[in-house]
């Protein structure tokens, strides 16, 4: 609720104007029956046409003022509530764009989307209702009751009893029906789940001949929904007519008590009956306000939850202190004793034993000349746990990747491969240890600079509404057509882009619906290449490609690494302190030995740990897990 009023305050002038006009409008409405009673009592009863016309003119003037006020109120209220909705929506979206991934994971993207779309609309409707009719209800209530008392003071107690009774019934109605309508909502959700599952699993249902059981499931959910609905509706069926009855009987009572009424005050009696119905209307509206406020405040607190999250780096910023100024480079082998001092527990895992020996040779052998260079990527003792997970996804991971080299990461499903690479563009921060890019601790990088040099091609391709070219230009908004075509060629995407009716200007639907999985993956890769990254990370992103295409793509990428930097697409000018060396380094994640076997260095992951590091041949000698994987995939060939 605080949130809502915060935004109302932002447009307070407009909201106040609307409320002011609303007040005038309501008073105009309230005066009508009283003026009518004047006509009746002073004109009609006394058979005085002049008085009738005079009061008629007053009434017309009041009605005109009321209508004018209502029109103005409408303009201001509509504008103000839309502005409030726009502001909340905009602030929420901006905030979401600045969230860290730990919070995005926790809140769930689909829930965040609902908050920006549905919840904001709820609040907006509330704000609009508030200024349009809701404020009117209490004013009408108080005003009408006051006017009844003025008109027929002797019946104050009757009116009080009737209204108290009606209010009690309305309250009881809400109290009884609310939990029942929650049950309806739950039954509706269940019905939705069952239908969605049925539609999604239609093949399985048919394949297992489970139509009968599905029908029973659906029937049960529908019946549940119908039953809860009947129960809830019947509450209203009981109370609604009862509330009407109480007010109607109140009118009868008033008439009965006025049987000795002076004929000169007939008009007052008529006006009072009119006010009674107005009050009833208003009371009903109050119950509506309460409901609408409950819903809006639930929405508001969901949005507030987003606002309460810290910005992406605000929370993590605090931990950087002790890492600043750490020398940017220690050679891979100097590191080992360094690690040992920090962590007294000797490593005992079977896999770990392969780590020690393979560390030295792998770095030395793969690229001896690079020993004095700053490594492209380095992990030091990295341990990382996802926010709500029990066990760490990465434990004590250390490795060094030379500039211009290729690094393969292999391991079973869930062994931490994707987590590992998501730390490189700093989508997450490790709880302990540190990650270095170009010799600098990630926490010392300006995040935009950092991400500008890294391109991560995710497992699941994401494309955005637009054209093929506009999607590829994400990599570099100023990229020329030739750059884009060249990147598409390298990613083996040009072959199908060229066959599209509009080529690079072909429309891409939301999420790339009109493209196949393999096509989307190739466009994602091309987009990464347009960027001209220093570190290219391929997270199993060639899975939907057939073997031949995958082979071609990887061969093309290999040509961009090492000394072959001249063939890389045009790059933008994020030069930094070591711009003289722009060889691209490639990290490839895969489950396939064939994909990683020719990498300069391969990291074998198992349950968050490094199970082995080395070249293909070394690992075949030293790493049991690697041997097992190789055997499962190449089996026959190696006998």
């Amino acid at each position: 609720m605080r949130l809502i009023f915060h935004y109302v305050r932002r447009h307070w002038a407009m909201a106040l104007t609307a409320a002011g006009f609303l007040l005038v409008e309501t008073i105009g409405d309230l005066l009508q029956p009283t003026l009518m009673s004047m006509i009746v009592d002073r004109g009609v009863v006394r058979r005085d046409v002049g008085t009738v016309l005079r009061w008629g003119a007053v009434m017309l003037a009041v009605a005109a003022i009321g209508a004018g006020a209502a029109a103005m109120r409408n303009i201001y209220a509509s504008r103000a509530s839309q502005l409030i909705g726009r502001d909340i929506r905009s602030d929420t979206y901006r905030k979401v764009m600045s969230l860290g991934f730990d919070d995005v994971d926790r809140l769930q993207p689909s829930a965040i989307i609902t908050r920006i779309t549905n919840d904001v609309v709820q609040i907006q409707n509330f704000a609009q209702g508030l200024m349009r009719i809701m404020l009117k209800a209490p004013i009408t209530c108080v005003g009408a009751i006051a006017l009844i008392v003025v008109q027929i003071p002797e019946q104050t107690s009757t009116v009080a009893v009737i209204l108290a009774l009606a209010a009690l019934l309305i309250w009881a109605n809400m109290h009884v029906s609310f939990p029942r309508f929650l049950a309806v909502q739950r039954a509706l959700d269940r019905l939705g789940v069952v239908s969605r599952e049925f539609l999604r699993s239609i093949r399985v249902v048919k394949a297992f001949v489970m139509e009968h059981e599905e029908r029973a499931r659906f029937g049960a959910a529908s019946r549940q929904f119908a039953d809860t609905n009947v129960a809830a509706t019947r509450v209203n069926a009981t109370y609604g007519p009862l509330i009407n009855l109480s007010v109607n009987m109140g009118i009868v009572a008033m008439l009965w008590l006025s049987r000795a009424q002076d004929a000169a005050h007939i008009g007052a009696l008529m006006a009072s009956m009119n006010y009674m119905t107005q009050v009833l209307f208003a009371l009903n509206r109050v119950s509506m306000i309460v409901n609408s406020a409950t819903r809006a405040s639930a929405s508001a607190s969901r949005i507030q939850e987003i606002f309460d999250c810290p910005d992406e780096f605000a929370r993590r910023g605090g931990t950087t202190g002790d890492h600043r100024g750490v020398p940017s480079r220690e050679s891979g082998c100097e590191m080992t004793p360094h690690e040992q001092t920090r962590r007294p527990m000797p490593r005992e895992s079977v896999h770990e034993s392969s780590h020690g020996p393979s560390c030295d040779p792998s770095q030395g052998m793969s690229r001896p000349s690079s020993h004095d260079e700053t490594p492209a990527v380095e992990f030091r003792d990295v341990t990382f746990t996802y926010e709500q997970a029990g066990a760490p996804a990465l434990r004590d991971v250390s490795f060094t990747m030379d500039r211009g080299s290729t690094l393969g990461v292999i391991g079973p499903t869930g062994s931490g491969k994707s987590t590992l690479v998501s730390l490189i563009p700093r989508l997450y921060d490790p709880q302990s240890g540190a990650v270095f890019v170009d010799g600098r601790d990630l926490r010392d990088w300006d995040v935009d600079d950092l991400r500008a040099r890294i391109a991560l091609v995710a497992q699941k391709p994401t494309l955005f509404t637009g054209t093929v070219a506009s999607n590829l230009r994400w990599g570099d908004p100023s990229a020329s057509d030739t750059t884009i075509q060249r990147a598409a060629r390298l990613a083996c995407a040009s072959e199908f882009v060229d066959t599209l009716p509009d080529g690079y200007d072909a429309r891409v639907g939301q999420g790339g619906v009109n493209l196949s999985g393999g096509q989307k993956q190739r466009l994602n890769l091309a987009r990464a290449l347009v960027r001209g990254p220093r570190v290219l990370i391929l997270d199993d992103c060639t899975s939907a490609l057939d073997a031949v295409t995958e082979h071609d793509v990887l061969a093309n990428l290999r040509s961009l690494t090492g000394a072959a930097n001249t063939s890389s697409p045009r790059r933008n000018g994020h030069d930094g302190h070591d711009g003289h060396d722009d060889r691209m380094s490639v990290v490839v994640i895969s489950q396939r030995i064939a994909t990683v076997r020719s990498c300069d260095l391969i990291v074998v992951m198992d349950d968050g740990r490094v199970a082995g590091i080395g070249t293909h041949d070394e690992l075949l000698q030293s790493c049991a897990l690697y041997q097992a994987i190789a055997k499962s995939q190449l089996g026959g060939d190696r006998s």
Partner: protein
Amino acid sequence: MNVPSPTFDRRTGGPQFGGGMARRGAPVVKPHDMRGTLRRLLDATRGHRRGLGRVFALSGLGAASSVLSPLLIGMVIDRISARESLTFALALLAGLYAADWLIDFGKQWMMAAVGQRIVLHLRVSLFEAMERLPLRFFDRHQHGELMSRLTNDVDNISSTISDSLAQLMVYAFTIVGTLACMLWLSPPLTAVSLVSVALVLLLARTVTRRTRPLFARQQRVLGELDGHVEETVSGMATVKSYGQEQAMIADFERLNERLCDTATRAQTWSGFMMPLSNAINNFGFLLVAVVSGVMAARGMIGIGVVSSFLLYVRQFSRPFVDIANIYNTFQTAVAGAERMFQIIDEEPEPADAPDAADVDDPHGDIVFDHVSFGYDPEHPVIHDVSLTIPAGSRVAFVGQTGSGKTTMVNLVTRFYDPDAGRILLDGRDLRDYRMASLRHAFGSVLQEPSLFEDTVAANIAFGRPDATREQIRDAARAAGADAFIGRLEHGYDTVLVGGGSALSQGERQLLTIARAMLADAPIVILDEATSAVDTVTEQSIRRAMMRMTAGRTSIVIAHRLSTIRDSDLIVVFEHGRIVEQGTHGSLMAAGGVYARMVADQTAI
């Protein structure tokens, strides 16, 4: 005097005022054949409408209260001013209110049950019709669209049609009754009252004509905005790693601004309706008050007539405005019914022939005899394929994406029937078997794992609901799923939500493999079943599968050639045709397509 009582709006979850006012501006969808659809609806709900007649009758009676109460109040007022005894008139009025209460209560109480009974019947009929439809139908339609048929449309049909019929009934009686009473009381005053009705109707027309396109545009912009939010939030990793946050925010602001503008205009215009009709009502009230006041002052009418008219004019214009709105929602609901009937009218899966046989302990001899097929007859994806799969053999289908492997499997399980040629199981055309018994003969693990919101155990036992816990465990162990299930919070009793979204793709696949293991069908089909499982796990599943499939016919589709090299027969597909078949050894020796594929996968 009737005051609208709060009704519940299911979609937003709280009581709201009923009536057409709230719905103005919502796009109206017109049915193509109103009469025909209504007649079908009558047929479809036959036997489930009991009580509806009574509800309508009560609705008609309910109108009596709003027609008669102003008359009676006028009577009472007359007597007060003439200082006559009120007892009789007041007793009548009290009796009228009491009757109104009983009628209203009875109507709403019965309506709740009747309406829901019709909804339930329609929904279940629709579901059953949907279930009988062939897969082609589901290929053609989006899930979201079918979902809204099953949920929103059905609700709308019944509630709107029965509610609005009842409401129309009330209004019709109210209008006719009120008009009759007013004419009886004073024809000139009736004419005066009709002025404001005409004005309100004119206003409603003008406003609706103005707002309809505005609301349509607002809906469009809102759709665009929601689409933008959806893709940028779910693709946030990409947005962030390309540093596109600012660009996306700029796009969002542009849409947001546009939405704000259109919505303000639409809201402002539709917002004029209420105060203006209010003003017109006030004006009409005033007109009646002045004219009747003058008439009463001249002694042409009594004071009671004045008060009756003042009450009538307040309640007279509302039904006219609402009828137009009710008719619109009525149309939209009938259009929904039409869409429902479209689904019911779809051609269901072919019925079993009268002499259809059961698949009884099949050998598993499968023959494709010159089979051609296309999902869309214009574009065949299988061209004249002939293939013999001997009973008990392990067969692998390989080939590039889109070469027709999955389609072949879809044809064997009769998800689709071939356009030409035939498929034989144990020497008999598939179409001569009973569909259910044929599908029971196949245990399939499909590409996309489908899990239900139920316990892990129930998910594995899908297809064999009578399985014991021990059998379920055995199947899970065989599939290699036992270990991770043990790590779940409640083990086999863990309820999977959101299609098992808490599990990894590989774990979901393991569960569906366990499901197929438990089904223990004579013929096994694995369509890329292990694509998301790592190769080491895959090996152990393979071994379990080998044990299971020993002596059974099995068809395996795999991307990874290493997993199928020990098959009895490897069939290589290219563009819907078989280009090679043989064992791993013979195909490697032949040095054709298969050998090239193997070379590509094992060495780069």
